[in-house]
Structure formats: structure tokens, C-alpha cells
């Protein structure tokens, strides 16, 4: 029998999950590295061909692009050297230079556009989490009654409408037929982002529709999952006893119910917030909202490989981190889960 080291079980768990996260990140990085290199033919040639077809015609620019691509991908080196180079650059935060937005570096581009995405996603997702979960608990308390049925139907339909489709309808309705809001963009053309009342107001006007489309369409998912968790909790022996055996007031019961059922949902929130970068891509495209999703789309259409690669890495990194934090958070706040690590029967 090996020497037994007594580690705090929570730390052991945190380390184990960290290991899984790093493993996953490595797999993702490897995929990001290997995929462009597995494509038959020379991706550089095809990119450069497309570039000559597109607008960039000046020979210097073409040469610079070619050099940059070679610099980023180092395709002339053997695969393992390429990989070492890829990783070492990554560690130094060097994600290469964009082709489309030459001469801006990928890291700078992300730093420029990411805040707009976060500004859109974090409030929309958080608000829909609170409201959706609240409605879910209310529906569960009134299960099989009229309120519940109405809520269920609406939420079910909402869940079937992807945010970008909802966005399209919102534009058709509130920007085209009833021109209350602009059809797209982040601010009026010609305006420069700065901290002035005029700009903030104009920005908000552009902000409302994309915000609504994400807010409304994610309500359904939260509401439905919360309702089903809460209904299960209500059927549990302890909720049964709290309500009927002890006779606690409705207010307290809702409070307890939320406490018991919201914990798994908190993990969900953290994950979705981590997702926000990936999840906003489609909505940003539909609204022409100037966030990371928008430049991602443009990068794909322009086959701007360094930028695509950089955005992928950022998205996956935020996601994994969010997931990791949420797991630890869950383990920490849920006394049941916390207890499970101690492993006492």
C-alpha cells in the first residue's frame, strides 16, 4: 500500500478537474493545429488565390500576406517543429497577424471587439437566467394549473426559436415595418465610439434588438429546465415535509425550493456565460453587431486563417475556464456536493 497523503478532498477535486480541463484544452489546441494542415492541397495557395480574386491586388500586399501566412503556419518546417512553434507563440500571447485587417494583430483585434460582445451577452444571459428561473419556479409551484400550462407552451415555443431567427423577426417587425429601431450595426455609420451621452444613446438604440433576441430566446431553456428541476424537488420527501408536515409559508417554501433547484442552474449560467462568445456569433451576424462574432464571420468568409485560429483559441479558453469555475463553484456552494467529496457514508 502506497503512502497515504491526506489532501483536502476539495483541493483534490479541483486538481483533478484542472487536469481534465488542461487535457481538453490540449486536445482542442491539437485539433486547431492539425486541421488546417490536414487539408489536401496547399491552403496558402488557395487563400492567396482567393485574395487575388478579391480586392487586394497590389503585389507588395500580396507578398506581405504570403510572408505572414508562412510566418503563422510555418508549413515549410516538419510537423513537430511547427507544433513547437505554434505552442511557444501561443504561450507568448502571439496569435499572429490578421490578413483581412492587416496590419492589425489577432490579439489586438480580439481585444478591440471582445468587449462589445461581452457587453451584449452578459446582461442578456444573466437577466434571462434570473427571470427564466423565477418563472420556472412559479410554474412548478402551480404545476398542472392554467398558469403552468401557458408558461410551458410559451417556453416550449421559445426554445424552438433560435436567437438568430428571433432576431430576424424582430428586425422585420420593429425595424422594417415599424421603423422604431435601426436594422443593424452597433452605432450609426460615421460615429466613433466614445463616452458621450450622444454616443451611448445611439448605441443603446442599436443594442436593444440584439439584446431582446438573446434575452427572449434563452428564457425558454432556463424556464423549462428550472421547472423540471423544481417539480422534482417538490416531489422530494423534504419539500413534502416542509410544505405539509411543518407547514412553512409559501414564501419560505419558494425560497427553499429556489435554494435547492438553482444550484445546478448556476453551473448552467456559468457555462452559458462562457459560451457567450461562441453563442453570440449568429446573432451578431444577423444584426451586424460589431462584436467578436462579426469579425469571426468576416474572417471565415475571407479565409483569414490566423484570425479564425485566434478566435477559436480564445473561445475555447474562455469556455473551459468558465466551465471549470462553475464546477468548483458548484462543488463549493452545494453542501450536498461538498459533502460528497468527503466521501463519508
Amino acid at each position, binding site marked *: 500500500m502506497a503512502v497515504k497523503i491526506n489532501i483536502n478532498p476539495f483541493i483534490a477535486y479541483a486538481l483533478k478537474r484542472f487536469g*481534465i480541463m488542461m487535457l481538453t484544452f490540449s486536445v*482542442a489546441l491539437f485539433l486547431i493545429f492539425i486541421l488546417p494542415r490536414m487539408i489536401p*492541397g496547399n491552403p496558402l495557395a488557395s487563400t492567396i488565390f482567393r485574395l487575388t480574386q478579391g480586392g487586394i491586388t497590389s503585389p507588395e500586399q500580396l507578398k506581405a500576406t504570403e510572408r505572414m501566412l508562412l510566418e503563422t503556419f510555418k508549413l515549410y518546417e516538419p510537423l513537430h517543429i511547427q507544433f513547437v512553434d505554434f505552442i511557444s507563440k501561443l504561450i507568448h500571447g502571439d496569435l499572429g497577424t490578421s490578413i483581412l485587417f492587416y496590419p492589425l494583430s489577432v490579439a489586438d483585434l480580439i481585444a478591440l471587439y471582445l468587449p462589445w460582445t461581452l457587453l451584449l451577452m452578459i446582461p442578456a444571459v444573466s437577466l434571462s437566467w434570473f427571470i427564466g428561473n423565477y418563472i420556472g419556479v412559479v410554474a412548478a409551484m402551480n404545476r398542472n394549473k392554467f398558469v403552468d400550462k401557458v408558461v410551458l407552451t410559451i417556453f416550449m415555443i421559445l426554445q424552438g426559436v*433560435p436567437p438568430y431567427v428571433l432576431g430576424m423577426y424582430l428586425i422585420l417587425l420593429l425595424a422594417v415595418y415599424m421603423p422604431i429601431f435601426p436594422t443593424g450595426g452597433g452605432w450609426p455609420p460615421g460615429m466613433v465610439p466614445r463616452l458621450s451621452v450622444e454616443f451611448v444613446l445611439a448605441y443603446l438604440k442599436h443594442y436593444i434588438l440584439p439584446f431582446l433576441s438573446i434575452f427572449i430566446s434563452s428564457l425558454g431553456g432556463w424556464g423549462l429546465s428550472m421547472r423540471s428541476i423544481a417539480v422534482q424537488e417538490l416531489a422530494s420527501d423534504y419539500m413534502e415535509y416542509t410544505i405539509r408536515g411543518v407547514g412553512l409559508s409559501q414564501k419560505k417554501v419558494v425560497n427553499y425550493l429556489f435554494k435547492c433547484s438553482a444550484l445546478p442552474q448556476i453551473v448552467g449560467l456559468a457555462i452559458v456565460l462562457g459560451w457567450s462568445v461562441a453563442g453570440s456569433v449568429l446573432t451578431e451576424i444577423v444584426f451586424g453587431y460589431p462584436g467578436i462574432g462579426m469579425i469571426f464571420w468576416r474572417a*471565415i468568409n475571407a479565409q483569414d486563417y490566423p484570425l479564425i485560429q485566434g478566435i*477559436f483559441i480564445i473561445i475555447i479558453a474562455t469556455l473551459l475556464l468558465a466551465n471549470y469555475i462553475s464546477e468548483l463553484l458548484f462543488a463549493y456552494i452545494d453542501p450536498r456536493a461538498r459533502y460528497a467529496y468527503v466521501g463519508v457514508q
Partner: protein
Amino acid sequence: MISSISSTIIRLFRIKKFAIGLLILLVVLFIGIVGPAIYEVSPTRTIGRRYVPPGEKYPLGTDALGRDVLAQFLHGIRGSLYVGAIASAISLSLAIFLGTIAAVFGGLVDKIVMTLSEILLLIPSILLMMLLAAYLPERSLWIVAVVIGITSWAGWCRGFRSRTLSILSSEFINLAILSGASRLNIIIRDIVPIIAPYVLAAFAMLFSYSIMAEVGLTLVGVGMTKDVTLGLMLYVAQIYANISQGIWWTIVPPSITVTLIFLSLYMIATSIDELFSYR
């Protein structure tokens, strides 16, 4: 056996949700299968001016390239159903196969499958699809479907594993062993009949998920480049900024259909699940 199957089906139909879901699905299926055969206009050829509103000549108008929207719509449904069927068949088989062998064999096999699925779950499949698709120069319906299929099995694989494990831990498996039943016999006679409804529900969910995923991929620009699907219609409408011009007829039919497919399958899946989990 037969009588019990039919009584189960009757019970299923008593659930309104199931009946409505199935009805919607059948209508969409019918349109997708029969539609293109009846309405013989090419979805890819320019046949008139661009943006002709719906009218007598073109029932659903024309799009940015002067193509018939109804023809596109009918072929689009068919294409999307294809993607859904292929992708869900692939991911479902992977999920069932890996999930059950992980449960039955346990040990190292289980650990490998579980770690693999955990990694896949952590890297969101839609991102993986984008990554795969972004680097593929030519993308047909088949390629997109395969990409969706091989990236979306992880969650269901875990579901099948835990269901199989709970069946395996039941006393009746021990009694079957004590009756001298072989491993194969136990899988066929004990495990399969119990997970069958779950398979159906999983298929329904994966099917609609795949259709939605294809739309998303195409809309980002890493989806279909050749065949017509609902996603491609939305993509074209998006690039040509149809929405802000108020050209609704290229957007409303495909988007509503995507939602309807999802809704119908969701209703079917949840009612199957409800019916069988109450026993």
C-alpha cells in the same frame, strides 16, 4: 407482445402533445418528400427578375438571384431532412455503441469513453463543427451531416451509459444470469427493450438538433456550399441583407419550418420520455 406494443402506441396517442407533434412532423416530411416531385421548378436556376414578391407566377416570389423561392423551400426542406437523418443516425449509433460498451465492459474501456465524451462535451460541438467545416474547401450535404454527426454524440452517450448501468444493476439481470441466459441474450431481451423508448427520444432530439446545427453552420458561412437546405436559404437572405429590405418571403418560410421541426420533435421526444419514465 404485439398487444402490449399496440396498447402502448394507443396510450402514446392519447397524449395530445405527441399527436400534435407527430402531425406537424408528418406534414413537414410529406412536403419535403413529395413537394419537389410535384413542383418541378429548379431551385438553383435563375428564372426571373430578383425579388419578385409572392404572386401568381411565383407562389413564394423570387430571391436575390432571381430563383424561385418555393422550389428552394421544397428542396430546402428535403435537404435539411437529409442532413438531420444522416447526422442523427451517425451520432445516435455512436452514442448507443459507445455508451453501452462503456457500461457493459467497464474498466479501461469505460474510462476511455468517458474521458473522450467529457472532452467532446467541454468543446462545444458547434464550435468543433465550425472548426472542421472552416478548413474544408468543398462542403456537400453529406460532409456537413457527417461533421455534425461525429461531434454531437457525447451527451447522449453518457445518457445511454447511465441507463444501461442502471439496468445492469437491477436484480432481474442477476436472475437472467442465474437462468443461464447468455450475454447476447441479455442484451437483446433485457437491455434493448428497456432503452428502446429512450433511443426514440434521443433520435428525435438529435434529428432536430442536427437540422438546427446545419442552419447555424451555414449561416456562419461554414456550412453547405452546394446543396439547397433551409440553412442555405437563410444564408443567402442574410448575405443579401433581405431582412433590412423587408423581403420577408425569403426568410419567413425557412425559419418557421426550422422552428416547427424542432417543436414537433421536441414534443414527440418529451412525450415518449414522460410515458415510459412513469412506469
